[in-house]
């Protein structure tokens, strides 16, 4: 049945099926009580990181531009949605409805910021673009650190100096308190919503890739001069990919912020550390490989937590495992090994040999990345 489909459709179905099966398995395990508290607590972050990895893959893998400021868009989504939820905690009583509106607001705001940043940034290429996105990511984080926002009977107050300058009435409450961030965000995220958001993200990204626009975006990646010469509007398609990527990062931010009761913009969660972390998911999962991004995000988020048993050595082991994964993924010997003994090979023994096409695809991306000097 699967054999008669287009290759891309088949691959997409496998990706959706993987997420849905993982969801059903986890839900069954949780309801029978055989999952540790740790794993249960990680389910929502795993969804958020998967969404981030998939959305960054759109910029890095499909558009072919190295963005190092992805966490900035996540930051926008997280703060906007958390502030919205906190302001309306009493006025919108339905938890789910409030969260859905918050997610939409997060997506719109992150998308707008994506467009605003995209206007100057997308005129650049390669390393320069990477550096500027890094700077914008840091700017967003630092701006979030100085914002004070309060609500009282007269409306919303805003300033960037200190909380007492908000001049609120006595009934006022502070929503965003500078570097302290937002505390007391309602806990609306759950695994089901996370998986639904991940599926929506996959739907958007996979459909975009296989659409006319997606082919145009990939043409720009492969050779922008050739693409321009056949009449592809470079700015439009670059902006399309970049803003959709930012929007989805905003959704992930909303999911993240509604899972914790505190939200403060530190370099750990919204700074370049996080941006690099997301990039690592994308690179180790395979640039341009959406399914790989999800798997890498899950493995690399779980690893440091599961390594808690070895305590002091866990950061060391984590680093070594990263290197090992990288070798397995992209060294010639690693590729050779996987082609000989990999799961893909076992699955498709009777069908057409996928590993070969996958191999050429990968070589293609590596070449593309090499050209940009990445």
């Amino acid at each position, binding site marked *: 049945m699967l054999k008669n489909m287009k290759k891309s459709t088949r691959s997409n179905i496998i990706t959706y099926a993987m997420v849905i099966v993982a969801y059903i398995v986890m839900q069954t395990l949780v309801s029978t009580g055989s*999952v540790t508290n*740790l794993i*249960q607590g990680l389910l929502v*972050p795993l969804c958020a990181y998967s969404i981030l990895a998939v959305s960054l893959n759109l910029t890095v893998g499909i558009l072919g531009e190295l963005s190092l400021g992805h966490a900035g868009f996540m930051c926008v989504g997280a703060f906007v949605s958390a502030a919205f939820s906190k302001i309306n905690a009493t006025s919108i009583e339905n938890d789910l409805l409030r969260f859905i509106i918050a997610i939409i607001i997060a997506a719109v705001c992150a998308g707008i910021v994506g467009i605003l940043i995209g206007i100057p940034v997308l005129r650049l290429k390669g390393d320069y673009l990477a550096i500027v996105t890094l700077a914008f990511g840091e700017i967003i984080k630092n701006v979030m650190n100085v914002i004070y926002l309060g609500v009282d009977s007269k409306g919303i107050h805003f300033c960037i100096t200190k909380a007492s300058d908000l001049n609120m009435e006595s009934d006022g409450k502070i929503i965003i308190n500078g570097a302290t961030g937002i505390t*007391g965000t309602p806990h609306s995220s759950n695994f089901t919503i996370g998986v639904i958001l991940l599926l929506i993200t996959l739907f958007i990204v996979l459909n975009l890739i296989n659409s006319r626009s997606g082919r145009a975006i990939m043409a720009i990646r492969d050779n922008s001069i050739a693409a321009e010469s056949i009449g592809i509007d470079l700015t439009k398609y670059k902006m399309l990919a970049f803003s959709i990527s930012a929007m989805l990062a905003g959704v992930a931010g909303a999911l993240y912020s509604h899972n*914790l009761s505190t939200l403060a913009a530190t370099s*750990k969660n919204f700074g370049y550390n996080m941006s690099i972390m997301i990039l690592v998911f994308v690179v180790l999962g395979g640039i341009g490989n959406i399914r790989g991004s999800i798997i890498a995000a899950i493995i690399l988020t779980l690893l440091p937590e599961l390594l808690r048993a070895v305590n002091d050595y866990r950061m060391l082991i984590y680093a070594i495992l990263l290197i090992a994964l990288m070798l397995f993924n992209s060294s010639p010997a690693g590729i050779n090994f996987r082609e000989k003994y990999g799961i893909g090979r076992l699955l498709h023994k009777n069908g057409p040999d996928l590993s070969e096409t996958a191999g050429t695809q990968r070589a293609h991306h590596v070449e593309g990345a090499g050209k940009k000097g990445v």
Partner: protein
Amino acid sequence: MKKKIVSLVMAGLLVVSAISGCGGSGGSGSSAAAGSSAAAGSGAAAGGSTIKIGSIGPVTGAAALYGEAVKNGAQLAVDEINAAGGIGGSKIEFKFEDDEHDAEKSVNAYNTLKDWGMQILMGTVTTTPCIAVTEKTSADQMFQLTPSASSQDVIAKDNVFQVCFTDPNQGIASAKYIGTKKLATKVAVLYNSSDVYSKGIYEKFMEESKNQSGTYTVVAEEAFTDESKTDFSAQLNKFKSAGADLVFCPFYYEVAAVVLKQANEIKFTPTFFGVDGMDGILGVENFDTKLAENVVLLTPFVADAQDEKTQKFVAAYKKAYNNVTPIQFAADAYDAIYIIKEAAEKSGVKAGMKTDEICKLLKEAITGLSFDGLTGTGMKWSADGAVNKDPKAMVIKNGAYTAMD
């Protein structure tokens, strides 16, 4: 095709067994009986004869110093208590998990400790992660005593108590102290605007200082951030020209050392007034301790204090941890473990009790307690979780801390 399906199923099974395998081994034997996951919080009673106390804090990353101190201080107290027979006859098991000063990691660490069978949480060390964790402990009804998370948001839940002062308390106490002791007439304030701790104290200090206008006025206030904490000449010159005779410094000692040095270079010699973060100034490497002469600090703990309890603790700490001088965080953690011990013994907490039972008992016991520890005598707690103790003012004379009267 058949083969494909078979191998897929096999792979799936492998994943399932791997995940649930973790569940079995980490759940301290209670996973089979835990039943529905929702009840896991109250059902996590650890079998056996030990009381399991968990702790969370940063031992990697930028704030690692504080987590390490808490870990060591608590371990020292646990070892002492166990050597003396434990809490009401049952030994303490202590486990510390890293949170890298990140809220998300902190919740993960909490869940890990819950899987281990933790009954009481002594943590977390830093404020922002602590607030995220209090939401979880409150849902699970687990007793939580934080040694050093000082924001007021930390104690919003009824199961959370603090050993340290809240930030507002320090600011208010400092402002009042300067007023009642008539230490100055013109005060300048320097603070770290990117640090929650420093900013929290600063804001309350400014509020309270308005009430002290009879004795002194604040003539200048300047801020710096984590990125700009190497050059203070602009701020100090401003203070100097404003004629300040006291500079209030609510930040940590590493920065304070730089400030003192640069003040000396421009011949600016007001009284420097620090809070608990200033403790440690005499131990900064390559710092001329003469510069710290006459610095006043309002702190619950100094390692050089002459009382017997502190000296015993400092000696034991140095012996156990490579001659490192304990900072206030270590003392807070040491006290925290003893506070838990005293409250537990008073209310008859026994090993094998459920976490919510222990929480209920300890919550009642701690509000009736009067505890003498390293960081204060006669420490009392109100039901809102804040501690009530007198800050001690210290002044540095001849390179050593001496109590100010």
